[in-house]
């Protein structure tokens, strides 16, 4: 199977003078194309450190990192910038949108830093709009981040991450600031992207969220502790059904959220079919097209 990313005996040490913090102490992992991984582990176990290395935001102390067939571990700052721009899509816990930009401008941003800095073509602009529509913000392209809810901001971030067709999508606690229904919304989007073949690596603390992935990697003290393959994955439908059971939130809102999102291939229509069909028209007008 073709590898999207591969790390070999990756080490990351922080030299703090008197002490050397060994955040990663030899991690080797393979991420085949189309993988969907949740990295778990207690605080300080090195999850973010690993993700930053995978994202080309930092260089390892030792070890190799092959991304899309290219050794990234020894690249200089400029080359790494290009790698981040072309091969990586970031989704952060705190969204990290540029506050003075509109939704559309935020989505456009990675295009401005393409190698050679080409001008935005009409095709590019069309793609941005398509992305905005895809994450359900077609009507809000001129809004600014402060006018959006957390979930909506995170959807902008997802659209932005997709702009340059990245090799891998990295999400560090993407749902950490969101309530459970909104988390389902975001995870559904990620699930859809993964179903299209996109490789996704996410860090999370929440076991519920980790169940959306194909497999879980548990870290401890800077090394891989164990790997769990999710035999039964959470789907948008099952998540929503579980949500309804808990009766945390108003049914209508939850169903509307689900109905607005494109259906996934693996969705089991039987579970919530009645609810979905009932809510479709009310929300379609605002989210689709």
């Amino acid at each position, binding site marked *: 199977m073709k590898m999207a990313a591969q790390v070999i005996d990756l080490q990351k040490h922080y030299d703090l003078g008197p002490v050397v913090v060994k955040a990663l102490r030899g991690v080797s992992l393979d991420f085949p194309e189309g993988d969907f991984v949740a990295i778990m582990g207690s605080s300080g176990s090195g999850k973010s450190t690993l993700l930053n290395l995978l994202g080309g*935001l*930092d260089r390892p102390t030792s070890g190799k990192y092959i991304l899309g067939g290219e050794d990234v571990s020894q690249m200089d700052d*400029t080359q790494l910038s290009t790698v*981040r721009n072309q091969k990586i899509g970031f989704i952060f816990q705190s969204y990290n*949108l540029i*506050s*003075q930009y509109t939704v559309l401008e935020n989505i456009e941003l990675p295009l401005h*830093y*393409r190698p050679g800095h080409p001008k935005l073509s009409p095709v590019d602009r069309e793609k941005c709009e398509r992305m905005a529509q895809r994450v359900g913000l077609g009507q809000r392209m001129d809004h600014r981040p402060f006018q959006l809810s957390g979930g909506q901001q995170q959807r902008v971030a997802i659209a*932005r991450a997709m702009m340059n067709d990245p090799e891998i999508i990295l999400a560090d606690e993407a749902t950490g600031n969101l309530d459970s229904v909104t988390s389902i919304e975001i995870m559904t989007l990620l699930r859809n992207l993964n179903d299209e073949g996109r490789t996704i690596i996410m860090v999370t603390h929440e076991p519920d969220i980790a169940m959306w992935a194909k497999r879980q990697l548990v870290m401890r003290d800077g090394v891989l502790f164990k790997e769990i393959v999710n035999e039964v994955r959470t789907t948008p439908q099952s998540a929503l059904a579980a949500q309804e059971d808990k009766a945390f939130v108003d049914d209508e809102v939850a169903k509307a959220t689900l109905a607005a999102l494109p259906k996934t291939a693996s969705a089991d229509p039987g579970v919530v079919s009645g609810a979905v069909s009932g809510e479709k028209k009310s929300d379609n007008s605002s989210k689709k097209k």
Partner: protein
Amino acid sequence: MFSRVIRTIQLGLKSLLLHKLRSGLTMLGIVFGVFSVIAMLAIGEGASKQAQKQIVALGARNIIVRSVKPVEGSSNDQSGGGTPRYGLLRSDLRRLQKTIPEVVSAIPIRELNREARYRKFTMQSRLVGCTPEYQELNQLRLSKGRFISDTDRASRANVVVLAYEVASKLFPIEDPLEDRAIQVGDIYYSVIGVTEPRNASAAIGGSLSGQEFNKDLYIPIETFRARIGDQVYTPKQGGMDSEHVELNQITLEVRDVQDVIRTSEVVRGTLEKFHPQKDFAVVVPLELLKQAEQLRQIFNVVLGSIAAISLVVGGIGIMNIMLATVTERTREIGIRRALGARRRDIIEQFLTETVVLSGTGGMLGIVLGLLTPFAFRMIRSFALNFVLDPKTLSDTSKMFQEMQPEVAPWSLPLAFGISVGIGILFGLYPAQAAAKLDPIEALRHE
């Protein structure tokens, strides 16, 4: 490439507009810096143009030789009876005309301060014995009548041309030309012409004070000699002062400007042989012009440097704000870096912002600078009307009264260039500080 520059500038403008007040205040430093550069240069330029105009009025091809009264007691004057005898002689005039081929013309003047009288009106004026050429030499224009002629000279006629101020003082109502005669000393002269007002010429060195043409009386030099003579008596405290002078001034015109300096040396050499007591001085307007030009350059450098200091202060203000901006926007920098911005892109972004800031400030400064002449006139008329008493003004401040600041066209691109340069100079450090930030730490910021 070009579209990218435009885009970066748009980006810069956009983030500056986000903090309008802050950007505006930051810009003020540059605005005033550029303004003062332009204004200082304009005032310097105006002052030197004024001086040049006055010097040029003396004639760039002219050499002026003046009689100088030797210091009391130091001279071995040959006159008996205690009357000092000094100055240029008519023989000097002839000698200079004959022996120096470069000299095209030589115009002699005899002058004396005397009171002019018409009925009950009197005025202290300067009686000038001269030739018809004097009119052209000093660019005198007549408002009435004619200037003295060669016929007047030959016949030693008692005719006089009144300068503007004398005419209006002695003849407040009547027409001076209607068969009127004025009295100077005990001699009557009939008025044949009146000049238009004329600006004073430059005061050039100790030997030639600034000439105020408006208080002059012009008579033929032959008439002067015949009626008054070389030996004159002037009443002074406790008796009479007397002196014997043939000519007060000879103005020589040289054929070619290039020969002026050399010819002036020849003139000096020729005269020195016959005037061992050094009772004359040679003034070369062209030399003065060159000195004035040097002075102007020094003036410009000094004024320009003073203005440049305010530009530097403005630049420091910009740097200060940009450093604060970098800290404030650390998160944004982290985001851009994560999305693929190289260090260079970040530097470009922040540098563009400072340059847009300082460039806009420079442009506003230029607009203000263009208003300098207007503002200067307003301030001057205010000062003259309410603060200063025009009657007590010295010669220098009279110059201030007449000068016009002139915005030098070259100072505009210069000032704009400097303001952009300041933006780059003082923006570089904050921009580099922004680019050096570690992306991970920047993303974690606040």
